[in-house]
């Protein structure tokens, strides 16, 4: 006897939506509206008091966005999700739902540049400070925890250096300290890894990337695992104590495995308003419908590109967990059995000057500040996504001046390789073509 609940590919297409409740519309309707009629005064009061579910105002929730939220929660194995206008909005909302002024975060040092700046420069303005730890320094996470630490945060595969955090061990460290582990799983998508299976408690995504997949729409999401017991200690009073904003409600008591999401929506969406537009939610869902198909091709192309780069005379080094010499090769086999993702970092011989020439001379690969498009993308992080960092911070974040970040698309692999040959050829004579 086995449960007959729907599997991943089916959930990618169907989760969160029933056509018969929506005029028979097979596709998810786009509810392009700001607000929703109340049946009567009692109905309005019931919605505002959280007595019943439903929509009030699209800053708080929207039916189209709601389908996306349920779909991603289903795919991640989470209890609930809340979508946001971008991945950065998701991270900010998640942290502000957890932390108060005077609190502390332990974070991986190898994170997206925007995230690093949020943690390093912006959150201290709210009285929230961060200690950074290198992602492979598992015991470093333990040592960095303080009395006021409220979570450990990291990207499973660090951006852009591809260093893998030992998520199960870091989760144990977090849980022994009575705090949750929050993972940015943008690079993996739930197709490659479900962080809740490895001990994470909160997952955030930039849906803009592989989940949407087509480089068309900004979106983010927070997903709640539902296992973390907020009432085990007194570290999270805004979740466990009476909340003045809702008649003395205790989110943890009332909502248990969805308490974090309920607070993020009731407080964060109400007060900060980082809501996702229904059109963008719909666009993201078009991408999710083909997530598994695309991720298989992304990963297959990435592994072929790793082989190609490893053998190339112009390449100094290659970092991707599918490479047998990658320090995290064995751990990646355990955590990412279906594929190691399509982000490759490599160093080009000739340093920054050669890298500049390479990027300026590839034609198929797009030079832009995004990852996870169906198209192949390249960037030189030290002069773009991580350019606000000084030399020491760059080094601590695992970046070097010769590093090129490659997001492998799903074009024909031979076309990508041919394009790279043009780039490498130009890189050999950088002074002539660097500023072409």
């Amino acid at each position, binding site marked *: 006897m086995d449960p007959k609940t729907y599997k991943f590919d089916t959930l990618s297409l169907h989760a969160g939506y029933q056509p018969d409740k929506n005029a028979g519309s097979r596709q998810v309707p786009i509810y392009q509206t700001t607000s929703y009629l109340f049946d009567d005064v009692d109905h309005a009061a019931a919605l505002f008091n959280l007595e019943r579910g439903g929509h009030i105002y699209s800053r708080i929730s929207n039916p189209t966005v709601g389908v996306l939220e349920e779909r991603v929660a289903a795919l991640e194995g989470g209890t609930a999700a809340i979508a946001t206008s971008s991945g950065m909005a998701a991270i900010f909302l998640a942290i502000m739902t957890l932390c108060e002024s005077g609190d502390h975060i332990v974070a991986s040092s190898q994170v997206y540049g925007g995230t690093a700046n949020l943690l390093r420069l912006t959150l201290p303005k709210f009285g929230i400070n961060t200690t950074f730890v290198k992602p492979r320094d598992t015991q470093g996470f333990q040592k960095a925890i303080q009395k006021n630490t409220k979570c450990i945060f990291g990207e499973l595969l660090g951006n852009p250096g591809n260093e893998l955090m030992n998520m199960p061990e870091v989760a144990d460290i977090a849980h022994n300290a009575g705090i949750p582990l929050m993972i940015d799983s943008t690079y993996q998508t739930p197709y490659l890894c479900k962080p809740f299976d490895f001990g994470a408690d909160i997952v955030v995504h930039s849906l803009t990337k592989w989940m949407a997949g087509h480089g068309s729409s900004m979106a983010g999401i927070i997903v709640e695992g539902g296992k973390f017991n907020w009432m085990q200690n007194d570290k999270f009073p805004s979740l466990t104590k009476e909340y003045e904003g809702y008649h003395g409600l205790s989110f943890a008591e*009332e909502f248990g495995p969805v308490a974090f999401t309920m607070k993020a929506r009731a407080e964060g969406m109400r007060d900060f308003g980082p809501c996702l537009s229904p059109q963008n939610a719909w666009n993201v869902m078009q991408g999710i419908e083909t997530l598994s198909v695309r991720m298989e091709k992304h990963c297959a192309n990435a592994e072929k590109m790793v082989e190609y780069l490893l053998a190339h005379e112009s390449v100094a080094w290659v970092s991707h967990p599918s490479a047998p010499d990658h320090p995290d090769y064995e751990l990646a086999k355990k955590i990412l059995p279906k594929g190691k993702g399509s982000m490759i970092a490599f160093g080009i011989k000739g340093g920054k000057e050669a890298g500049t020439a390479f990027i300026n001379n590839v034609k198929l690969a797009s030079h832009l500040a995004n990852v996870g498009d169906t198209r192949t993308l390249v960037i030189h992080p030290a002069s773009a996504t991580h350019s606000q960092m000084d030399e020491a911070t760059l080094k601590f974040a695992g970046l070097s001046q010769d590093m090129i970040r490659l997001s492998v698309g799903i074009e024909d692999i031979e076309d990508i390789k041919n394009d790279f040959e043009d780039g490498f050829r130009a890189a050999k004579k950088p002074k002539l073509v660097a500023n072409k």
Partner: protein
Amino acid sequence: MKFKVNNEEVFASTGGRPFDKNKPLIIFIHGSGLTHMCWVLQTRYFAFHGYSVLALDLPGHGLSEGKSLTSIEDMADWINDVIDAVGFHQASLVGHSQGCLVAVECASRYPNKIKTLSLMGGAGAIPMNPELLALAENSDPKAVDLMMDFAHGPSGHFGGHPVPGLYHLNTGSMLVQSKEIKDTLGVDFRACQNYTNGFEAAKKLDLPTLSILADKDRMCRLKDGKKLADHINGSEVHVIKNCGHMMLLEEADQTLAILKKFILEKYPII
């Protein structure tokens, strides 16, 4: 709120309003392995509309201390103890699934205290599938997966939770897994399996009774719910279409509307 019953701490949600001894009491009794949280889309309405609400965590469940009670009869007596412990002389009971067995048994034992019964996804007996029972008693997570499959209809399986962003199956699964499976779900399933007095207890009842049933219920089938209702004199029956066993969440608005009408009429605020 937390209070003591038989020297053990009990948790009950009061629906977001302070517990008030001057308002009529409604007690919500959850099903096997679950907690007070499954009632959130019913309790808050009544708490905000003139009633005192206790959505209980049975002993050993959710935030309540102690060990799980091993028989439906013990749970029925415990509900009576709860009413005494909070200083009331009467209450209205609302049960779901196993909670219906408890509510019916309690009302038959304490007819002077129980004023109305509202039964959701109930039956006169809930014999367990032997494989499912064994899995639950061995703390096998597959028991929870199977329960979530059986307990949900189309809304649960496809989605469409009334609260934006929540996903039925995983939320239910985490509620059950908040405690050791064998200590809650396993004990509860065994208590259901052993209970044989449901129809006899039902025949004794003489109080306003409501049955809310669902046509896609695979845990307590519609015909079993109707059979129980047939044994209760004057029982009112409502069937929710295209819905599974978890009607209190899957079709929360319909469930609340039926419950509101019944309770406001049969158990009014004086």
